[in-house]
């Protein structure tokens, strides 16, 4: 064959092959008839609520016509429908004020996630193996009804438990009502970074057991004790907006922000002054400030009222908290204590806030009460520029902790409502083992995660954009807020709203609920004049406590606790053997790990380290030099409860005797984007709780560290402008490395 013929032959055969392969596959796609009339190319904005944290930010979703891959009648295909394309803050919402955080922006990926569960599933393999088979909704509901009927037949209704997130609002209210009607105990709630210690302290100090709203905008002096209010704590969008206004304060002078912590967080990075302190002594500094203010007669001790009475020695002027004593305990110089106190007293309105690591020590309640007393002393409660409490419209639902679920006789049926305690609990608390004892677990989440992988039945929920949603924000506004919104788009898949499924089940039981609950969540939300939304609801809600809307006018609690005495923090791990404090912190983007499945959030560089798609351990720069550790080195961190390995990030803003790690990575089973990325610092934490609460004391673990390896290609991934950068692992080490 000559060259000419060879070319002709290959060209003809290649073209034929390409023609065969290139057909037009769209003509074979099943396309469903559109269910709505939309003007192509025209966007509408519809309101909804961001579900990714408890702040309850009102959002608006831009909805446009588009083609979507969907499930209809159990069949996959394509449909032309209104699709949410973008989320923004709702300008008319009192909490978000038209703004949205990075997590809120990425919330749209929940709906379109490629690993989102599209239909009900039943377990086929071993528990935790992740082997499921698709089943129909009729079969799934029949199975659940059968399990619940068996409990009723055995008169064992209390063996049903529901595990959910502690989100205040009408959804939780309805869930609690549902359980009560069935005869089960109160819902169990789980949250790693729980603020329950602060709520309890606020109840004691001010009679309002809820999170405070801090009026940054009008404050002239702000002292934050560990509260990362610009990052992850509480209502961070509302707080960031208020902080922005605070920084634009007029000619009266710039408001000063002082941040007290053992680690330079994002909020600390924005502060005018960063006060490094020994972990677990923050409240001592607060009382040190109070001592100086009282001793210098800048404010009378009695001004603190009830909040002051909750502190031992308050009436006597806090003689145990002189600046010299404070310096001994906290490591903050006495002169600085004096100066901060005088500035705080002179800059009315001055406000202090506390959260995060200080409240996650064994003595967390002390710190919260101390800061509350400081606020009360300078008269910064329920005044502009101080802390206040949003009036709550209804009773707070009584809930139980996970310990209550795991202790004693295991329930026989567990309803798992999109919460992941297996990932977000220390390994030694053996949540997974506890759940294994439960014979039947139903998960309602939209994704398989470490906890829902143990489920026997998965009944996937609609995404928030496809559902009726509501929120009763606890903080973030000066006024009471309660919002609800309808779906912004039709469901993509064969999913159902969890609440509607439970209401459906309540009608299908052998002995249906009587009187019946509303048919749907929508009906419940639009219940009109009936405050509980329940036709024929009991006149007196049982097992609930009504919050006092006005904190200062609230009457003292009937059983006032005895004044709190400072006790040194108890750390898990001997300081000789485990010389470093271990400070896990909520990731700016991944939070407690519940948003690690969203690739946008994995891709966003951490604001302080610029790291992405990885775990890292923050070590003091000078300490690292002593230990010949360089950026990116593989470090082994060992606590009394376990070991993990992560790459070093050198940070000048962390105490030399502490190492810190962001929480969120280290999932073993949570979609393609989170599984196998990084390590989980929660796993090696002590299971100890904050005294007088059920809150995990996640700052109370001590660790030892050892350099065990060189930087690796995929170890520490830092953002470097337009590209991902990895550390230069020859830098500073000499040729032998």
């Amino acid at each position, binding site marked *: 064959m000559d060259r000419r013929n060879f070319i002709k032959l290959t060209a003809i055969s290649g073209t034929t092959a390409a023609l065969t392969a290139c057909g*037009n596959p769209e003509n074979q796609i099943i396309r469903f008839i559109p269910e709505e009339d939309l003007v192509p190319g025209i966007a509408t904005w519809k309101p909804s609520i961001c579900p990714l944290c408890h702040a309850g930010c009102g959002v608006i979703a831009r909805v446009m016509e588009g083609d979507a891959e969907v499930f209809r009648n159990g069949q996959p295909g394509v449909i032309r429908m209104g699709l949410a394309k973008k989320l923004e803050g709702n300008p008319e919402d009192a909490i978000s004020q038209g703004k949205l955080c990075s997590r809120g922006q990425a919330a749209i990926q929940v709906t379109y996630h490629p690993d989102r569960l599209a239909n009900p599933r039943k377990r086929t393999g071993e528990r935790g193996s992740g082997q499921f088979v698709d089943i129909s909704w009729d079969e799934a509901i029949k199975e659940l009804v059968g399990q619940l009927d068996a409990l009723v037949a055995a008169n064992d209704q209390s063996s049903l438990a529901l595990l959910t997130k502690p989100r205040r609002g009408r959804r939780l209210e309805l869930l609690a009502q549902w359980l009560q009607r069935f005869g089960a105990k109160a819902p169990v709630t789980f949250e790693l970074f729980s603020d329950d210690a602060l709520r309890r302290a606020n109840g004691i100090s001010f009679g309002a057991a809820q999170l405070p709203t801090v009026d940054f905008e009008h404050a002239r002096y702000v002292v934050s004790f560990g509260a990362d209010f610009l990052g992850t704590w509480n209502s961070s969008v509302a707080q960031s907006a208020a902080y922005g206004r605070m920084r634009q304060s007029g000619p009266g002078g710039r408001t000063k922000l002082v941040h007290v912590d053992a680690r330079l967080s994002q909020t600390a990075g924005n502060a005018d002054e960063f006060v490094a302190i020994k972990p677990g002594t923050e409240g001592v500094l607060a009382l040190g400030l109070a001592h100086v203010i009282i001793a210098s007669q800048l404010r009378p001790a009695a001004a603190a009222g009830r909040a002051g009475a909750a502190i031992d020695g308050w009436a006597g002027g806090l003689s145990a908290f002189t600046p010299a004593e404070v310096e001994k305990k906290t490591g903050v110089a006495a002169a600085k204590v004096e100066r901060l106190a005088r500035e705080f007293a002179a800059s009315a309105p001055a406000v202090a806030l506390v959260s995060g690591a200080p409240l996650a020590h064994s003595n967390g309640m002390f710190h919260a009460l101390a800061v509350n007393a400081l606020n009360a002393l300078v008269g910064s409660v329920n005044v502009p520029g101080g802390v206040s409490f949003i009036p709550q419209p209804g009773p707070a639902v009584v809930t139980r902790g996970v310990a209550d679920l795991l202790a004693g006789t295991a329930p026989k049926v567990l309803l798992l409502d999109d919460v992941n305690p297996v990932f977000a609990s220390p390994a030694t608390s053996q949540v997974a083992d506890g759940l294994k004892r439960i014979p039947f677990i139903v998960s309602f989440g939209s994704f398989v995660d470490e906890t829902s992988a143990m489920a026997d039945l998965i009944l996937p929920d609609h995404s928030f954009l496809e559902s009726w949603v509501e929120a009763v924000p606890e903080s973030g506004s000066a006024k009471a807020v309660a919002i609800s919104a309808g779906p912004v788009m039709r469901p993509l898949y064969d999913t159902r709203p969890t609440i509607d499924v439970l209401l459906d089940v309540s009608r299908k039981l052998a002995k249906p609920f009587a009187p019946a609950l509303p048919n749907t969540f929508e009906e419940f939300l639009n219940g009109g004049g009936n405050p509980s939304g329940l036709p024929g609801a009991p006149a007196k809600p049982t097992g609930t406590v009504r919050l006092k809307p006005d904190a200062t006018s609230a009457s003292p609690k009937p059983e006032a606790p005895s004044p709190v005495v400072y006790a040194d923090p108890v750390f898990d791990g001997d300081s000789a053997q485990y010389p470093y404090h271990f400070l896990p912190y909520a990731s700016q983007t991944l939070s407690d790990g519940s948003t690690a499945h969203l690739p946008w959030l994995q891709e966003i560089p951490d604001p302080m380290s610029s790291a992405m798609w990885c775990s890292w351990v923050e070590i003091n720069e000078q300490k690292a030099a002593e230990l010949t550790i360089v950026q990116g080195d593989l470090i082994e961190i060992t606590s009394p409860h376990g070991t993990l390995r992560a790459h070093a990030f050198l940070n000048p803003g962390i105490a030399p005797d502490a190492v810190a790690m962001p929480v969120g990575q280290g999932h073993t089973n949570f979609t393609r984007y989170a599984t196998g990325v990084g390590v989980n610092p929660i796993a090696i934490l002590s299971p100890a709780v904050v005294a007088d609460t059920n809150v995990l004391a996640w700052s109370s673990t001590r660790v030892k560290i050892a350099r065990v390896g060189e930087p690796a290609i995929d170890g520490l991934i830092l953002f470097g402008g337009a590209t991902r950068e990895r550390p230069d692992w020859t830098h500073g080490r000499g040729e032998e490395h």
Partner: protein
Amino acid sequence: MAFPSRKAAGTWPNWVLAFLVVVTMATAACEFASPGQPSGMAERSRWGTSAVLTPAHATAGDAVKAFFDSRPDTVAQPFDFSHQIHLSKGAVCTDCHTGVEQGPRAGLPSVSTCMICHSQIATDRPLIQQLTKLSEQGLDLNWNRVYDYQPQAHVRFNHAPHIAAKVACSTCHGNQQEQTVARRAVNMTMSFCVNCHKEKQASNDCLTCHY
């Protein structure tokens, strides 16, 4: 004087030339096999597609096609719809192509639009029975757009202002009364748009269409 060496050119292995010919022809063929489809759309991953091949053409096939100005007039459709019959019966464009008066794009009718009339009219015709069956199954037709701009063309068109300015549909889409299945009767080049804008004294500012 250093002329390029003939010998050097002649030493290219035959398989390199053959490969280049195959790649060029195959990609071109691939384009002709999917006529009328906008190229480089995110949801379609086609052989030879590359976002960086050229700024203007996503695939080698696109480039070849554009060079020869060979975009076919007809677009494969899932259903032999006759514009001629419908327009002769008094239907108007906006009965089925909704949205042109309000927004940038013309809607493509769903089967339920067809059934507004055809649940009653011409129900004995085989094609209409085919439609009725689809409608009962909840299935829709997969129309392919006849007119569209490629994303690489960096041009935007908005129907609504043109309709408001009383530009007849046929100005850009030809006389549909003469067409059965719609075909590209007008070649919408930039000069076509610019000339009309000049004639109507509409803005010819670059940013009118390229933004």
